[in-house]
């Protein structure tokens, strides 16, 4: 157990942008929301999965929508609080702990913005990264249920959803979010402490904090920040170049598009396309998919390692594209079935990014 104050929050915000794999929503917005709440209510208690009692009641609290909309239609901390309250009112069961659904982007920080509830935050999530759909969480792999799901929006609309499957919950909730204007706050996947210990990815907020600190320290020490992140997560540097085209639209409840990067240095003469649906789905080098979900694909500013979310990438940026390995559960047959490249319409076999790294070393 430890306390998360403003300093820890800073590092988590930077690190969660990396774990966001291009999406997850602007953590700056989340940081400001959480900072206001921490200033008002004091630092937030964070506990490890192993500190949960089997009888504890845990739920995710998360924003739903499109990162490209979130930066205009700012969510409120009170909406995160209200979503959890609405879930409790519905089930009649008191929530004892809240957890991030995803360790990436804004949603890594949303639980801290619900500090007014006075509930401890669990250092674990349902992804070990960010994904664009409600059902793409590790609890789904264990038969965990997304609903009852409580949803609130900035207009005062409140909804409780019960669905026969997590896929249905995603479809209905996505359409409601779209109608509301593409940003809502949700409380979902209520589970016991015993289930959380089995289902969730442990230590992800600490991992985000470590990544944030690593980035700051490697910059101060003039080490190659991109390399530092790649080595720390045992990933691969996929490409280096300059952004020469971006197409981006808020469609069907997501931010969808692609960024084209023209190679420089060792990648001169090649180009890479990053295709995203909130998060990066595939990295395509000269027409060939070289990395894909469920591994994390991220663009970082070439010289500083500053992570650049898909909704912010712009013409002219000089970037390094890195691939980082995902949680082992996503690499199982069941994991790949819902979060692999084919689940997103790319008819290619999944290849772990470490293999890409190993192969390029052989090539060299």
């Amino acid at each position: 157990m430890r306390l998360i104050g403003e300093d820890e929050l800073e590092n988590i915000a930077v690190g969660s942008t990396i774990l966001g794999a291009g999406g997850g929503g602007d953590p700056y917005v989340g940081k400001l929301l959480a900072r206001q709440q921490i200033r008002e209510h004091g630092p937030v208690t964070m506990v490890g999965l192993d500190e949960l009692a089997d009888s504890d009641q845990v739920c995710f609290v998360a924003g739903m929508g499109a990162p490209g909309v979130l930066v205009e239609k700012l969510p409120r901390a009170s909406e995160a609080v209200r979503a959890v309250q609405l879930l409790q009112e519905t089930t009649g069961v008191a929530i004892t702990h809240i957890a991030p659904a995803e360790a990436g982007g804004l949603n890594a920080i949303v639980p801290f913005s619900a500090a007014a509830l006075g509930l401890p935050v669990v250092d674990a999530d349902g992804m070990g990264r960010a994904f664009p759909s409600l059902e793409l969480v590790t609890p789904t792999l264990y038969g965990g249920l997304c609903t009852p799901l409580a949803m609130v929006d900035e207009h005062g609309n409140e909804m409780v959803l019960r669905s026969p499957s997590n896929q249905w919950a995603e479809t209905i909730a996505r359409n409601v979010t779209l109608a509301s204007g593409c940003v809502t706050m949700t409380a979902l996947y209520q589970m016991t402490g015993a289930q959380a210990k089995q289902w969730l990815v442990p230590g992800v907020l600490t991992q985000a904090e470590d990544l944030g600190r690593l980035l700051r320290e490697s910059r101060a020490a003039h080490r190659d920040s991109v390399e530092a992140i790649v080595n720390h997560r045992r990933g691969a540097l996929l490409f280096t170049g300059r952004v020469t085209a971006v197409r981006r639209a808020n469609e069907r409840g997501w931010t969808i598009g692609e960024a084209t990067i023209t190679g420089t240095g060792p990648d001169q003469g090649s180009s890479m396309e990053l295709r995203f649906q909130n998060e990066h789905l595939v990295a395509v080098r000269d027409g060939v998919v070289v990395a894909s979900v469920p591994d994390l694909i991220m663009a970082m500013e070439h010289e500083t390692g500053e992570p650049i979310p898909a909704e912010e990438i712009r013409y002219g940026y000089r970037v390094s594209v890195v691939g980082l390995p995902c949680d082992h559960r996503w690499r199982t047959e069941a994991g790949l079935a819902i979060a692999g490249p084919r689940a997103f319409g790319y008819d290619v076999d999944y290849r772990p990014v470490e293999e890409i790294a190993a192969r390029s070393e052989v090539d060299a």
Partner: protein
Amino acid sequence: MTNAQQGPLRLGIDVGGTNTDAVLMSGNQVLSTSKIPTSPDVISGIGASVSAATAGHDVSRVDRVIIGTTHFINAVVQARSLAPVAAIRLCTAPASLPPFLDWPSALRAAVDGGVHACSGGYQFDGRLLNPLDEGEIGRVAQELDRTGHRNVAVTGVFSPLAGEQESRVAEILTDMLPGVSITLSHQIGRIGVLERENAALLNESLRPMAGQVVDGLADAIADLGISAGLYLTQNDGTVMSLDRARRYPITTIASGPTNSMRGAAFLSGLADAVVVDVGGTTTDIGLLRNGFPRESAVAKDLGGVRSNFRIPEVTSLGIGGGSVVHRDGDRLVGPDSVGFRLTSEALVFGGTVTTLTDVAVAAGLAVIGDPALAAHLPADLVRDALAEVNERIFDAVEEAKLSDADLPVVIVGGGAQLISPRTPPERLIRPTDGGSANAVGATLGSIGGEVDRIYSLAEQSRADALTDARDEAIKLALRAGARAGSVSIVDEEDIPLSHLPGGSALRIRVKAVGALDTAGSDQERTTSCV
């Protein structure tokens, strides 16, 4: 003299907090430079500096005057000469993360003229988020009238998609508040409501001063009998008209560092280097890449305020020739500076304040004023102050390098001779005329062509629309005077608009930039100084 030769001349001016530099250029030749203390009224300093630089030259041959200034960024950094601004946000009230939330407290105290969260805004697809309540806007106007506020920034949710509500608010306020000045966020910013709002607030807070400065510049140049076109440098090194600068001073906010870094590249002939610009009040340190200042990706702080403008990544230290040297404390040097009063307040000019200039003179690094007046400074103070300055600059130089690359260090600016950072001598370059690198950089201002237009996709593809916008931007840059063959696209962005009649449309923004035509002949150079 050979200045009877033909060919147009260009005059570059940099108005800094301490000095006003002027440089006269013919083609790639520096004909003359001058450095005069910036006057309290700004104008007479410009007049004196330009007179000195143009003495003996035919000013009727000057065909372009380009000005850069650190006035606006200094105002933001020091939180002075800024107007209080009323912030109107069109959103679902109460606003989440209200205006000024993440601002440094001193800057907020200077700019925060009240926050009004009003019904309004659009959804991502152009639907109304909330209707505008004109009665509510009217009540805000009455309150502004009562409190005497005349500077307003209006920021609506998703206004880059649909600016109508912001424009309607401007109409209502203009009707009800005579003399009101209004910045509309959709006219200057991009998607990202907090960053766009910050830019609008800073822009509006700078406007009254920008008006005075721009008027002063125009008067000073006219008084000298120069009738050439007058431009200000923008953050990206392209030039803008004075009228545009009056309305959008935020787009010139980084012109000082941009100019000195480009000037340093030009004078040193280096494309990749760390540039150290030592002025009277601050030392700016930045990285040159391919002859241009390295820009920050992602969001960048402007005086501690998050924005999404593209500006050079520059570290600013409170160290300059006018920096006050203290006898004790954590820091011996700065950040306070006597600024343009150096020539009356520094010891070597008969004043009573010990400045970095006095210390450098005592150490024999420079001969300025009357060195005898600084001779009494204790040797350990001189040694410690210079060591501190060199240490801090060295640290920032290392920081700017980003990697351990063995980059050369170019030292420019009026205070260049005062310092010698720990860099191997063969990697330390002090170009001729480096003292006027900022004014030289101003004359290098490039010409931009910008398209910001809505394209219907009913009868053309996105690719065709983008091609059309690129061609148009290049054409505009050429028409504005860019050299053929030098124009390239530097920025491009499109925002889908699904709400317009006809189904789908795009708002496309493209910027093309080309070099100024620098035809000219070799000239004899003259230098004048005070």
